[in-house]
């Protein structure tokens, strides 16, 4: 039953498919072998019915009575009777004159009326084809034969034949050619066996190709993620990338292994069965094709129509999903604002639409199969009738009809399968296109030519901003001509209301985004000349979103650093103040950090600070925000943060007054721009944006 799940259409079907096949390069031998096997297997399936018809012919030939022998026997016996009876009559001086056939028939009937003793006396045993036929047998034969009548049915006649005496029966009984039967059955058996083995091997090979390709795609996507500029993730949804890793890769992997060979198999079957039909009998071939054509047209029409509803169904399912997600996740608002009725009304509307296309798509796709079955049956009858006609006119054998009964199936099945394969190809192409689109995204600039390097052990910790200009959108510069000089060990606080663009500074320092104009110098070296890897090696970054991965605490703390002893870890944990907490966990350092467990967000924050500390690098970027952290943990976090900043040149997205006041330089940001810069006192005196911002927290 064609039940395509995705009806997406690729924008460039041909191009994508070509690219898909090109990227299968490494499996080309497997592919060629598998396709060849599929081709051979399909060819075997088309030959099989012909061989089956041979078997049937042997069997049905073995059922025909030996009519030739019947003729010989009756002739011999009547000859015998006539001869001996004439002689007998002559001895009795009864003259006999046989001039016509009627005369001999009369004579035979006369003979039949004799007493058994007389018959025995008159006749002599004869020998036909090395078989002795006794007098008694001859008498019985005549009796039986005389009961044959013109108007008797075939079956009744065969019943009469069954009454013949053994000696005669053995001569006329049908003989099956056992040797021939064995030979043909063996050939057919081998064909079936080979077919099964080939299909199986081919299936396994294609499994390797399909699954292997999906694996490769997933790996490529995952590697690509880390080569993309951050801009991509700031402008694309995570879910979108995720669905390429899972859904799209799976769609390609699973469907491709089935589809390529299914296509080969079915095209071969289709073409092969047409050829074989014509080879076997062209008249019946035309009958079979003619009988099925109408059905094909009908089912293609249905397939097209049902696809329309499938697309609509997918769309409505999406709508419903969206609505449900919205209402469920906004549940408390819906309830508190008495919005249930409205939500239900909207739900009903979408649900009804879904119901309608659901019903239609299911109905239409559901009747495809019965229609194909009907086409098969109709073809069967047509083949039988025409075949019978031909058999009666001795233009073909019964075996041909049997073969055609199977050809009709072989011929009707592939077409619907090919149509199905085509739709699946479409969704493979759509999925592949999405993956390729992602793979073609512009990557981070190549850096292998950059020669400058700063060793983190020798880094001094000076940073200078020289007329820096930057804009996320090239037409919209948000940082205009920013200059500042930061000395080793100084603290730079970045403040501003929400959405003011405080992370822009992080993005520039870490070379996540490249500055448009001007320069940033680290220890006198331009970041344009330094590789990202080198820069990242110099900075510790602790952000507000406490990102930890699923793994043990130890793994998370060590993260990318290879050689860290447990002792070092414990020391740092003590410094940060998270040691006690880790000890209370049942697994200690081996406890798992997951999405939803007992580790609070404050504790997570402490862990990320510890992670940064283990990395131990000369510069620090720190986002201080400690929202949703309880007061006691907050205190711990703040102490840990202060420890972290010690001796490091630090850029702090500041939320605490103490940080702001102590900072060597405060960058005040608003709407993406750096609007003011200076120390706390300087800025307060200015009585500008910063002063307003600062004072607002004490307002009544």
């Amino acid at each position: 039953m064609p039940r395509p799940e995705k009806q997406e259409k690729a924008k460039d079907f041909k191009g994508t498919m070509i690219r898909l096949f090109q990227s299968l390069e490494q499996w080309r031998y497997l592919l060629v072998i598998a396709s060849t096997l599929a081709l051979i297997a399909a060819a075997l399936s088309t030959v099989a019915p012909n061989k089956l018809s041979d078997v049937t012919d042997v069997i049905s030939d073995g059922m025909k009575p030996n009519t030739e022998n019947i003729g010989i026997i009756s002739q011999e016996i009547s000859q015998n009777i006539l001869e001996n009876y004439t002689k007998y009559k002559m001895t009795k001086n009864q003259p006999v004159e046989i001039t016509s056939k009627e005369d001999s028939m009369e004579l035979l009937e006369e003979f039949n009326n004799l007493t058994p003793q007389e018959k025995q006396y008159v006749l002599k045993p004869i020998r036909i084809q090395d078989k002795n036929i006794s007098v008694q047998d001859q008498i019985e034969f005549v009796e039986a034969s005389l009961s044959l009548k013109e108007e008797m049915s075939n079956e009744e006649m065969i019943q009469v034949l069954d009454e013949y005496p053994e000696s005669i029966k053995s001569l006329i009984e049908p003989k099956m050619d056992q040797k021939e039967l064995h030979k043909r059955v063996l050939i057919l058996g081998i064909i079936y066996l080979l077919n099964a083995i080939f299909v199986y091997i081919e299936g396994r090979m294609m499994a390797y190709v399909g699954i292997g390709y999906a694996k490769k795609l997933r790996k490529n996507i995952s590697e690509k993620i880390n080569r993309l500029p951050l801009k991509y993730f700031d402008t694309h949804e995570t879910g979108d990338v995720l669905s390429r890793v899972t859904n799209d890769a799976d769609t390609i992997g699973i469907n491709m292994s089935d589809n390529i060979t299914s296509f080969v198999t079915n095209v071969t079957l289709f073409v092969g069965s047409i050829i074989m039909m014509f080879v076997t009998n062209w008249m019946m071939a035309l009958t079979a094709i003619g009988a099925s054509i109408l059905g094909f047209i009908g089912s293609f029409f249905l397939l097209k129509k049902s696809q329309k509803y499938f697309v609509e169904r997918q769309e409505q399912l999406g709508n419903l999903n969206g609505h449900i997600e919205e209402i469920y996740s906004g549940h408390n608002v819906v309830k508190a604002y008495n919005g249930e009725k409205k939500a239900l009304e909207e739900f009903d509307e979408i649900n009804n639409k879904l119901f309608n296309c659901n019903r239609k798509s299911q109905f239409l796709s559901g009747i495809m199969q019965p229609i194909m079955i009907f086409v098969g049956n109709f073809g069967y009858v047509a083949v039988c009738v025409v075949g019978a006609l031909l058999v009666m006119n001795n233009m073909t054998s019964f075996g041909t009809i049997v073969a055609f009964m199977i050809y009709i199936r072989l011929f009707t099945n592939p077409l619907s399968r090919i149509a199905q394969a085509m739709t699946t190809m479409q969704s493979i192409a759509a999925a592949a296109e999405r993956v390729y689109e992602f793979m073609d995204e512009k990557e981070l600039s190549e850096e292998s030519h950059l020669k400058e390097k700063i060793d983190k052990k020798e880094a001094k910790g000076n940073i200078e901003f020289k007329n820096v200009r930057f804009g996320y959108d090239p037409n919209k510069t948000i940082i205009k001509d920013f200059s500042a000089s930061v000395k080793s060990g100084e603290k730079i606080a970045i403040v501003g209301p929400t959405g003011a663009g405080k992370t822009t500074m992080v993005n520039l320092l870490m070379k996540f985004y490249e500055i448009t104009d001007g320069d940033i110098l680290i220890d006198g070296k331009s970041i344009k000349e330094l590789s990202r890897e080198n820069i990242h090696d110099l900075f510790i970054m602790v952000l507000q979103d406490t990102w930890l991965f699923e793994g043990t605490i130890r793994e998370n703390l060590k993260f990318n650093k290879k050689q860290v002893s447990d002792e070092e870890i414990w020391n740092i944990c003590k410094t940060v103040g998270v040691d006690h907490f880790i000890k209370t966990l049942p697994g200690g350092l081996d406890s798992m950090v997951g999405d939803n467990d007992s580790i609070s967000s404050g504790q997570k924050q402490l862990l990320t600070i510890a992670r940064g500390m283990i990395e131990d690098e000369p510069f620090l970027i720190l986002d201080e925000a400690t929202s949703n952290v309880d007061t006691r943990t907050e205190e711990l976090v703040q102490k840990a943060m202060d420890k972290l900043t010690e001796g490091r040149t630090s850029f702090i997205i500041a939320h605490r007054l103490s940080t702001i006041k102590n900072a060597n330089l405060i960058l005040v940001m608003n709407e993406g721009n750096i609007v003011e810069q200076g120390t706390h006192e300087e800025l307060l005196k200015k009585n500008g944006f910063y002063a307003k911002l600062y004072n607002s927290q004490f307002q009544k």
Partner: protein
Amino acid sequence: MIKLFKNLTKKDLSIIGIVVLLIVFSVFLDLRMPEYMSKITKLVQTEDSTLQDILTAGFHMVLCAVGSLICAITTGFFTSLLSANFSKTIRRKIFEKVESFGIAEIKKFSTSSLITRTTNDVTQIEMLLSMGLHLLIKSPVMAVWALLKIIGKSGELSLVTAIGVVLIVITNLTIIRIVSPRFAIIQRLTDKINGTTRENITGIRVVHAFNAEKFLQKRFNTVNEELSGTHLTITKTFALMDPMMNFVMHFQHLGIYVVGAYMIMNSSMTDKINIFSNMVVFSSYGMQVIISFLMLTMIFMIYPRAQVSANRINEVLESDVSVKSGSFHGDTEERGTVEFKDVSFKYPDADEYLLKHISFKAEQGETVAFIGSTGSGKSTLINLIPRLYDATDGEVFVDGVNVKEYELKELNNRIGYIPQTAFMFTGTVEENVAYGENGKQKPSLEKVKEAVEVAQGKDFVEKMDHAYQSHIARGGTNVSGGQKQRLSIARAIARDPEIYIFDDSFSALDYQTDAKLRKELKKYTKEATSMIVAQRIGTIMNADKIIVLDKGECVGIGTHKELLKTCEVYKEIALSQLSEEELENA
């Protein structure tokens, strides 16, 4: 499953009845066909049968085929109607049920799980009905009937058929046994691969900053290997299915012919033709029997998954709703008052109380603030007022009436609740602000504008492309957190409630906006009572009453000044945010 099917209406059941009759009839027709086939075969075999005979038999067979087609189409019509209708009904039931849930139930299931239960799980059931129902009725009927047709005709040929059936059933069951547990593993690994990729993307800055790209790649590769390996096992196992089926079917066919041939050899001439036609009949009926067993095993594939889905759906439908509506509606003596009388609260399955013996009263027009560390129970406390939870012990009164006595709608009409995370619906700004019902008229555009202005949202809303008619994307992704929070506050203001409940609703606002908003709000709603949960001292400093919570207990009630002197916990919190000097100056 059966429990779920109790939701079938009388009409549905009569449809099933019709479907059963139709299927039985179509099986009857389907099985008549081999008879005609054998009749035609016989006619073709025997030499002196006329074309007329063959045509008649052929015509009968085509008639059967047409009848069977009509049956199948009608069955398809009814089953698609039935399954689509059933899934529609169940989906609606789940949705309605979830709407009646309190937070406790939502938390118990988790939102994402509820969504899959409403959509995917229902689709599974729908699949079972649309494909399975047909198979479930047809395959046994067909198997039994086809068996009846061949049984007694020839012991030897029956044996060959039986061997085929046994082989098919064994192969299929083996494949299912190998494959189905692995499907569960695939599900888990897919989640895992999603998880590691999500980790990489959400932590992309950290990953880059720590040069940890290769580290994460290794983690991903491990899962990828495992996933692909399991996929491979499944696909390889399935690769066996098709060739095996064909092989068994063909060999059964061949076996019937060989056995038949020997029987023909050793029989009288009268029997030969009978055996031959039996042979032809067997080769097609035997096929039918095998196909029906194949269909049965297919049900074994669909059913377990549908069963799991059915259980998940039933869990939702049978789950008790803890918050039940009362019946009170009408006027109350008091207005704008909230009173807690010795209220304690714990989650149904929890051992420990989240709130212990809380008592206080808020008078009309007062601002009452709640502060305390995370887990101190302040959010839980105010959630008891709109009955998002119900108090375990003690009573909560709104306007002097126990909240449990109110009709939920009536209670909600008095309250303007602003949740911790601001929530936006798809639609325009106006629709979002004017959301819901409050027993009065729908807020006019004027009212909406006013509310947005008070909530300090006028500037950004009017800067948007279509101002109040601007579209808000699903989940409010095209507005910032602070903007969402302001719109969500405007939504409460547009309702004109007696009591405002702010569940930490100012957290995404900067100090300046926060202060201004509260000032404007106070001016706009002199009569209204405000209940505020906050983290920042600055937000609540000026409240009429501050209630300090610590581990579910009330450790202090009073004004900012009073509490600084009397309440140690409060002082600690205040000092962690502001210096002593700043506190003095405030």
